[in-house]
């Protein structure tokens, strides 16, 4: 008997066509596993069992009638709860939107539904994606499936935990400062932060509009290529989505030869690492070297400033984006007041989580009269320096390799009351968002406690095809991505 919950997207579609099992069988298998595992892991805020079974039946009907099936037919997707899903509660991990039922769907979620993917549930996230551990969720903290005392990473921690626990075929997340790559690394799954603008941001609650990058978690690079082939492309509802042609990611998976591939190792990304992380990354470098890749030492001296730029610009964009939560048009609202301004104060004071308030306050401060030039404008100029520095180094290499995080998953509770320490944990992921580049997070082994270590391959703009190809070949010669926790 095959384990239905441990199949890839392509295998599922092929099996449905061969009538090895039905979409309903598959969906029921996932729902049964969620019922068994999720009370411990707590990956989901909402499990969409009714919708999932209805969608599954519709796919089975298509098969019975011999109708054409979508590219992701039958695959069950877990969707980060900041993606608007029509008629399905979308909380953004915040009490502010508890009970909110959107009237329309986010573009990339809809594109996947159109390809016959099934929504299995909405996953936990730090409130509005502000965080690196899911501890800032307004609902609960997701547990790391490898060790329930540890964080799963964040903010897309629910999606990463669902993915490694076989509670879905693939999962959607967003990466504003590492929120796909870091939980992928902490949970041992494959995740891609695409180039800014490759995937539409439409219908996803906005965090920082010039940084937000939606993307996916999968079990391997082939599945990532399948998902990205469907989600990428221009969307008239998102003017910042790119009009650059979408490559055929699946057929390009074997395109890049590792022989002679110039892989840059930015020395600043190797400072202050936990010893086990350093060792695992070095072993991965050795694997590429064995395949005759050329390892090139490079330098990105402004790496440490990435955190500073990020934690100035992102709170500024947050403070502007969060102004829409006024208690009038959607979401929770304080008891009606005689006065409009009182309603704003009370609604935002009562329903916003601490991290939401902190970031709005920080951003409002940096944007306020007298501070704008010193912080916002200065950070925007340093952003240019960081962007230029990457471009200079990309003239010497095809891609860069670095750890995703200086550490593996940390204990739940360790950083939650120390926002500065939580922010500093993002040091190796945020510079990529500051520049808007794509980066692929791949599992590359375990530390002495049995917690996963992740490496990131960083590419130049719109080179997702190259990253996926190199990642795919790495996964052909290693089996880190096949390891699963005992649950």
């Amino acid at each position, binding site marked *: 008997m095959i384990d239905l919950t441990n199949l890839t997207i392509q295998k599922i579609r092929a099996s449905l066509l061969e009538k090895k099992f039905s979409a309903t069988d598959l969906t029921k298998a996932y729902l049964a596993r969620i019922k068994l595992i999720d009370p411990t892991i707590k990956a989901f805020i909402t499990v969409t069992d009714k919708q999932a079974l209805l969608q599954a039946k519709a796919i089975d009907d298509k098969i019975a009638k011999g109708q054409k099936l979508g590219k992701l037919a039958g695959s069950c997707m877990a969707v980060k709860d900041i993606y608007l899903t029509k008629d399905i509660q979308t909380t953004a991990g915040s009490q502010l939107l508890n009970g909110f*039922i*959107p*009237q*329309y769907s986010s573009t990339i979620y809809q594109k996947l539904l159109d390809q016959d993917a099934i929504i299995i549930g909405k996953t936990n996230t730090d409130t509005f994606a502000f965080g690196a551990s899911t501890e800032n969720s307004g609902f609960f903290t997701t547990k790391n499936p490898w060790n329930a005392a540890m964080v799963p990473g964040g903010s897309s921690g629910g999606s990463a935990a669902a993915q490694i626990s076989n509670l879905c075929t693939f999962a959607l997340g967003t990466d504003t400062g590492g929120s796909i790559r870091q939980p992928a690394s902490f949970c041992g799954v494959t995740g891609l932060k695409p*180039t*800014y*603008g490759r995937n539409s941001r439409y219908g996803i609650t906005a965090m920082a509009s*010039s940084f937000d990058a939606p993307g996916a978690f999968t079990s391997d690079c082939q599945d990532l290529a399948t998902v990205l082939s469907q989600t990428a492309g221009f969307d*008239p*509802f998102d*003017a*910042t989505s*790119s009009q650059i042609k979408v490559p055929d990611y699946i057929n390009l998976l074997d395109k890049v030869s590792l022989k002679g591939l110039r892989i840059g190792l930015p020395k600043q990304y190797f400072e202050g690492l936990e010893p086990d992380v350093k060792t695992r990354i070095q072993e991965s470098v050795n694997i590429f070297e064995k395949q005759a890749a050329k390892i090139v030492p490079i330098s990105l001296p402004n790496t440490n*400033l990435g955190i*500073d*730029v990020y*934690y*100035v610009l992102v709170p500024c964009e947050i*403070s502007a984006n969060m102004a829409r939560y006024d208690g*009038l048009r959607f979401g929770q*609202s304080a008891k*009606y007041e*005689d*006065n*409009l*301004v*009182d*309603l704003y*104060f*009370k609604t*935002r*004071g*009562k329903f916003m989580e*601490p991290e939401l*308030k*902190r970031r*709005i*306050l*920080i951003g*409002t*401060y940096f944007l*306020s009269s*007298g501070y704008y*030039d*010193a*912080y916002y404008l*200065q*950070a*925007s*100029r*340093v*952003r*240019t320096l960081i*962007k230029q520095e990457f471009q200079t180094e990309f003239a010497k290499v095809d891609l860069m390799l670095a750890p995703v995080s200086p550490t593996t998953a940390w204990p739940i509770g360790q950083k939650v009351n*120390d*926002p*500065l320490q939580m*922010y500093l944990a993002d040091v190796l992921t945020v510079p990529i968002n500051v*520049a*808007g580049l794509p980066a692929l997070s791949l599992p590359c082994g375990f530390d002495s406690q049995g917690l996963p270590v992740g490496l990131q391959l960083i590419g130049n703009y719109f080179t997702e095809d190259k990253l996926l190809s190199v990642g795919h070949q790495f996964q052909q010669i290693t089996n880190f991505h096949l390891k699963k926790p005992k649950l």
Partner: protein
Amino acid sequence: MAKSKFDISLLRHIADLARIKLSPTEIDTYGRQIEQVVDHIDRIAKIDTKNVDPTFQVIDTKNVFNQNKPNHLPVELATSTARSTYKNFIVVPASIEK
């Protein structure tokens, strides 16, 4: 522009601008936490950015235009999540004195 240091008294003013009601405990906690974050970030001021243009948008997208016609949610649907409506308008408390 010279910066003045962030402190707790400034936080009350910022919270007013952000339209967030804070309890005295919150003012104390967030005040200390934000002060730490701002102190850390202050090193950015030392970077020489003379003759460096700011980046507001990373992929050099040029102007994107749409046709000037409504192409999205009908009004009834758009207002359906509001806490109070009257004939497709959103009802709000008075914003000027009666």
